[in-house]
C-alpha cells in the first residue's frame, strides 16, 4: 500500500515536471505558429481588405484564386523552379559531399569553405548575385564576353531571370545538401569499399553499386527538405528580380506577400493556405516515398 502511493506520487510529480519542461517551447509554438496558421485559415474565408468592412466570404477567395491568371503564372513558375533547381542542387550537393569526404590534410578547410554560401544571409546573397548579373559591369557578363558572346540581359528577360535565380539558389543551397549527404557517406563502412577494390571494381562501379544505393535514404531526405524549401522561396527572388520581368519570376510566397503588403489579407491568406497545403502534402508524399524505397531495397 505504502509503496503504491509512493509510486503514484512519483507519476504525478513526473507529469508536472514533463509539463514544466515542455511548456516554454510549446507555448512559443502555439502562440506564434499554430494560432497564426489557424488565423490564416480563417482569414482566407473572409473578405478582409484594409479600410474596407470585413465580411464573411465563404469560398469566394478560393474561386477567385482558381480564376486568377497571376496565381497560375506564379504556380507555373514555382513548379518549374522546383523541377529544375532541386535535382540540380541534389547532384551538385552530392558532388560537394564526395569532395568533402575525401581524406586530405585540407579537409577541414575545404569543408569550411564549402559551407560559406550556406552561412551568408539570403538577402546578402541576393545583392551579391544582383551585381554579378549587372548588364554593364557584372561578373556574369564579363565571363560571357570572355567566351566570345555578347552581353546578356540577365535580370531583364524572363528566361535570363529564371536561369539567374536557379544559379544563385544553387550556389546558396548546395552546401546544405552536401552536409546531409556527407553524413550518409560517413556512415558507409570503409570495409565495403576495400572488399570491392579487392574484387577489382573500378571507382565508377564502386560509386554506382555501393555509394549510391546506400545513400538513397539520405538523398530522399535531402530531396524532401530541398523541395519544401524551394516551394517557399522568397528572399532571393524578392531581391534579385522582385518577381519581374512582367511577373514571370513571382514565386507563390512572393505573390502572397504582395497581397499582404497591398492590404488584401483575405486573398493573401487564401494563397498562403494553398502554399501551406502544397508543402504539407509534399512532405507526406516524399516521406512515404522514402519509406517505400527503403522497404523495397
Amino acid at each position: 500500500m505504502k509503496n503504491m502511493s509512493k509510486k503514484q506520487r512519483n507519476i504525478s510529480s513526473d507529469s508536472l515536471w514533463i509539463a514544466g519542461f515542455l511548456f516554454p517551447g510549446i507555448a512559443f509554438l502555439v502562440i506564434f505558429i499554430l494560432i497564426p496558421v489557424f488565423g490564416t485559415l480563417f482569414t482566407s474565408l473572409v473578405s478582409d481588405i484594409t479600410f474596407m468592412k470585413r465580411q464573411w466570404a465563404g469560398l469566394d477567395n478560393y474561386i477567385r484564386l482558381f480564376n486568377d491568371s497571376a496565381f497560375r503564372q506564379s504556380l507555373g513558375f514555382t513548379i518549374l523552379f522546383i523541377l529544375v533547381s532541386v535535382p540540380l542542387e541534389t547532384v551538385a550537393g552530392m558532388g560537394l559531399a564526395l569532395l568533402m569526404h575525401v581524406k586530405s590534410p585540407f579537409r577541414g578547410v575545404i569543408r569550411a569553405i564549402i559551407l560559406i554560401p550556406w552561412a551568408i544571409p539570403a538577402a546578402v546573397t541576393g545583392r551579391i548575385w544582383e551585381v554579378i548579373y549587372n548588364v554593364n559591369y557584372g561578373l556574369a557578363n564579363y565571363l560571357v564576353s570572355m567566351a566570345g558572346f555578347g552581353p546578356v540581359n540577365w535580370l531583364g528577360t524572363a528566361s535570363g531571370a529564371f536561369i539567374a535565380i536557379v544559379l544563385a539558389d544553387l550556389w546558396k543551397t548546395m552546401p546544405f545538401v552536401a552536409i546531409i549527404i556527407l553524413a550518409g557517406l560517413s556512415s558507409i563502412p570503409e570495409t565495403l569499399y576495400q572488399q570491392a577494390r579487392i574484387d577489382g571494381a573500378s571507382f565508377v562501379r564502386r560509386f554506382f553499386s555501393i555509394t549510391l544505393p546506400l545513400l538513397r535514404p539520405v538523398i530522399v531526405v535531402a530531396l524532401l527538405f530541398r523541395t519544401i524549401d524551394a516551394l517557399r522561396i522568397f528572399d532571393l527572388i524578392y531581391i534579385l528580380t522582385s518577381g519581374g520581368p512582367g511577373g514571370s519570376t513571382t514565386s507563390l510566397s512572393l505573390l502572397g506577400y504582395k497581397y499582404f503588403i497591398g492590404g488584401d489579407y483575405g486573398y493573401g491568406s487564401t494563397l498562403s493556405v494553398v502554399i501551406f497545403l502544397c508543402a504539407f502534402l509534399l512532405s507526406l508524399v516524399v516521406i512515404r516515398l522514402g519509406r517505400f524505397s527503403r522497404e523495397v531495397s
Partner: protein
Amino acid sequence: MNEERIQKILYYAALIIALLFVLAPVLFMISMSLSERADFLGNRYIFTLKHFREILTTESLHFMRYCLNSIVISFVSAIICTAAAGSGAYAFTRFHFRGRIWLLIAILTLSMFPQISIVGYLFRLIADAGLINTYTGLILPYTAWIFPLSLWILISYFSQIPRDLDKAAYIDGCSPLQAIIHVILPVAAPGMFSTLLLAFISAFNEFMFALMMTTDYTARTVPVGISLFQGLHGEIPWGAIMAASTVTTAPVVILTLMFQRYIIQGLTRGAIKG
C-alpha cells in the same frame, strides 16, 4: 595504380572547379567593396576604403544600428530558444509519456511550414500587441520559428547521454532541474553550443518576418537594411552595398570557419533523424 592516379586528377580538378564556383561571388563582393569604381572588371583597379568609411560613418544610412539590432535580436532569440529546446529535449529523452512520438512529429511538421502561411496573421498579432518595429516583436516569432530545429538537434545529443548519469543524480536527491544543471549541462555543452550557433545564424539570416515587422532603423535587421539600401539620387551605390555585405558576411563566415565541425554536427543531427 593507374586508376588511383585518374581518381586523384579527377578529385583535384573537381575540387578546383567547386572552390572557384563557391568563392568567386564572395571574392567579387570583396573586390567591389574595395574598388573606387564598380566597373573594375577589364579596367584598372583602384583600391579604396571609402565605401567602408561611408557605411560605418554616414549617420543617415543607419548601418551600424542595423548591425546592433541584428546582433541583439539574434543573440537573445538564440539564448531563449536553446534554453527552451534544452528543457524540452530533456523531457523527450528522459520521460515516457503518452503521445510523445506524435508530439515530436507535430513539432517537426511545424518546422516545415512555409513562413508565408503565418506571416500575414502574425503581423496583426504583433501589431495588436503594439510590438511592430520593436526587438521583442522579432525575438518572439524568431524563438518559435527556430525552436523545432533546436529541439531536434538537442534531442539527438541528449539521447546519447547515458541515463545512469541522471539516475545517479536522482539517487543523490537531485530534482530533475538540478540533474539538468549539474549533470546534463556539463556533458551536453558541445551540443548546446552547436544549437546556440545554428539558432543564432538562423535568426541572423531571417528575412521575411523582419521585412514585415519593422518600419525603420529602430528595429530593422541587417538583411532587410541591405535589401533596402538605395542611393540618395536613385542610383545604386554598389560599392557601399558590397562593403555592407562584406561587413555582414564577415562574422557569420568567421563563425563558420571556426566552428565548422559543430555546425556540420548540428545540421546533420537536425536533418538526418527525420
